[in-house]
């Protein structure tokens, strides 16, 4: 008996793991991809049943990154949960912050200063650029390109993160929005560097599309793969670029018109087939629209206070009531449902995670496709496990 009290290895009966040959009786081979797998975007597991190369059954298993975010939020103050919202979709902390701040502002009935609304739109669109560029990079990484598109995407992402860092203090964990406005006022120098970045982004996108969009291998690997019908998308509650790629033109920036979006002119691209290529192209076109919004917002951002001075942050005790507010995050509709009982901490705190809800129909898209396709389809769904597991 070795010190750890376990029986010595040699004494265990024969090979524990079932030899692969037995399973070959039936034609089906059960393969567990993840949670430790190079292309599952974090700790996500797909139990795939293969008939040769084609997927016969796919069971997504997640929960490995569950941190009990919502229960902790019930114990913490309203302000105390703000830094935790950065860790939901850790690629897009600014939009998570904004959605939470919007919910609390509606709950507590606080007004938001005009300059802060403009800054929030600018930061949300910058996050959309960052997220969609990374998506294209990850999609190609799953498709097998050895890192080149991903490195170009990260090069551009770093420029945007430098802007976030010089404004909020941290690249990814910004904790920047407050109830009634934003924490720090962007300096004119910051606005100029933001304008420079936005101007240069169009040229980067052209080079990126030259590398990817016309690439026959990418088109062969993604066109007609993982088709999503509009009816299934709507009934499954899919939102964001995946829904628009399936042909349903539903964009919360247009529907709700929150945060001065009606002041900016922009279009919402729609896909026709709803396959993986459409999901990729819709995101590329959305980036070009975001550049347009950013130019307009950066051109006519008004002066004025960044934070409404009367807005209460610390001991905020909103009156009893409940609110559900949502914004168009890069991955879809990210919403917060808060119930307040008048106390310093929320009675119920619920996050609507777009990644998780978009992920529920992964099996419908992967059935009948090959195992290599299921990896590319998972990549096109664009999930971040922080948001899926909360």
């Amino acid at each position, binding site marked *: 008996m070795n010190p750890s009290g376990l029986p010595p290895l040699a004494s265990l009966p024969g*090979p524990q793991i079932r030899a692969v040959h037995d399973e070959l009786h039936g034609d089906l*081979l059960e393969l567990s991809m993840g949670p430790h797998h190079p*292309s599952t975007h974090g700790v996500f597991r797909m139990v795939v049943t293969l008939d040769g190369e084609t997927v016969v059954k796919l069971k997504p298993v997640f929960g490995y990154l569950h941190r009990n975010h919502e229960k902790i939020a019930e114990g913490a103050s309203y302000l105390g949960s703000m830094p935790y919202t950065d860790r939901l979709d850790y690629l897009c902390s600014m939009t998570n912050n904004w959605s939470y701040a919007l919910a609390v502002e509606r709950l507590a009935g606080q007004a938001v200063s005009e300059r802060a609304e403009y800054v929030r739109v600018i930061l949300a669109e910058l996050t959309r650029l960052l997220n969609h560029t990374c998506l294209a990079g990850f999609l190609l*990484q799953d498709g097998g390109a050895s*890192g080149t598109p991903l*490195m170009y995407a990260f090069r551009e992402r770093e420029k945007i993160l430098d802007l976030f860092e010089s404004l909020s203090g941290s690249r990814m964990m910004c904790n920047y929005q407050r109830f009634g406005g934003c924490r720090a006022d962007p300096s004119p120098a910051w606005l100029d560097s933001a304008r420079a970045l936005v101007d240069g982004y169009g040229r980067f996108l052209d080079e990126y599309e030259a590398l990817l969009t016309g690439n026959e291998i990418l088109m062969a690997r993604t066109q007609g793969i993982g088709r999503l019908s509009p009816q299934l998308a709507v009934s499954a509650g899919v939102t964001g670029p995946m829904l628009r790629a399936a042909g349903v033109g539903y964009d919360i920036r247009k529907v709700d018109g929150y945060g001065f979006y009606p002041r900016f002119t922009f279009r919402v691209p*729609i896909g026709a087939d709803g396959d993986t290529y459409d999901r990729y*192209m819709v995101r590329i076109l959305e980036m070009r629209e975001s550049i347009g919004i950013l130019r307009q917002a950066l051109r006519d951002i008004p002066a004025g206070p960044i934070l409404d001075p009367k807005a209460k942050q610390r001991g905020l005790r909103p009156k009893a009531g409940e609110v559900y507010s949502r914004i168009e995050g890069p991955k879809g509709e990210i919403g917060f449902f808060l119930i307040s009982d008048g106390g310093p901490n929320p009675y119920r705190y619920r996050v609507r995670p777009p990644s998780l809800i978009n992920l529920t129909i992964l099996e419908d898209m992967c059935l009948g496709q090959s195992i*290599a396709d299921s*990896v590319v389809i998972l990549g096109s769904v664009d999930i971040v496990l922080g948001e899926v597991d909360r």
Partner: protein
Amino acid sequence: MSAGPTDAHLLERAPFLLRDWLTHALPEPLRWFANTLIAIAAILAIFGTLFALLTLVERKVLGRVQNRPGPNRTGWFGILQPVADGIKMLTKEDIVPRAADPLLHFLAPVALLGFSVLTFAVIPYGRDLVAVRLDAGVLYFFAAGSATELSIFMAGWSSNNKYALVAAMRALAQLISYELPLLLSAVPVVLAAGTLSAPDIVESQGGFTWGFVPHWHVFTPWGAAAFLVFFISALSESNRSPFDLPEAESELIAGHLTEYSGFKYALFFMAEYFGMCSLCGMAVTLFLGGWQAPLAALEFIPSYAWFALKLCALLLVFIWIRATLPRLRMDQLTRFAWKFLVPLALVNLAASAFWSLSFGWAGPMQALRWAIGIALAVGPFVLLGRRLGAGIGPRTYRYA
């Protein structure tokens, strides 16, 4: 081993002088044996260091393409990186899964490396600088190349891992379906050169027309098409970028290499790089005029230098393609081979037959000959390409 060119200048005869200086004291039968040993040692040493450098150059080029420096911490420009990798591989524990088939698990890398090293024997590195002068050298090259498939399947099957099993199946299908276009694209060269022996093929590509256009096969219409097919098949035979399906990182982790670690893992990589070098060497020999100089004026540079230059150029293109292209799917890969490369190679066979039959045409007929040649090369490429990429194309999008 031949006596070597007697008339050429010093640099050209340097390898032979060195060899003779080493073995002049030995009696006759022993000297032949010593010469062969020296040839083997030279090949292994040169291609061993080329393998080490290639791993470094690949990571540097990949880095530079991705706007980053690549390894530069070990040694001057990361020059000691291969040494560091080698030591790491040697000191890593060699784990053999308990349910694996120990004999086959051990034999797979050995067989793979053995067969891929065999192919170096017939490639002519310079004028009279070939290890074994076989008159069926090209056939020998492809025979040794085709035996590697067995060992990749052995590796995949014996490690008793599901990923490795799927990878072994893929490797079998891929290597067999790409061996056919590889051979078929080499046949026109044999038809044009009239011999299967590699040194004679290179000899037949000597000489220049109008003083500066060398007689390389790649500068003929059928030669260019055959070179393209050969190059794509070589990419696939050595499991390189668009076709690296057996060890597809994103879905099969490391494919048939999943259960290998330590020095066996390094052996697999050495075999892959040797395979890549030998296929590039054969491509240079068949199409790019082996050790022939591109310009008459540049004949003073020794022949083996030209071979090395062309080999490195082709290897860089291999790395460049790996840095850019995503991976094909299994059924697309086999469809691409059977419905695009094989018909293209067959039509190209007819084109090169026409080319060699119409050798006597002169004057205006020469232009007609070139026109027909180019038509026979480009026509099927466009037609088959359109049929292959039928459902695929750029799309336009409407806005809500």
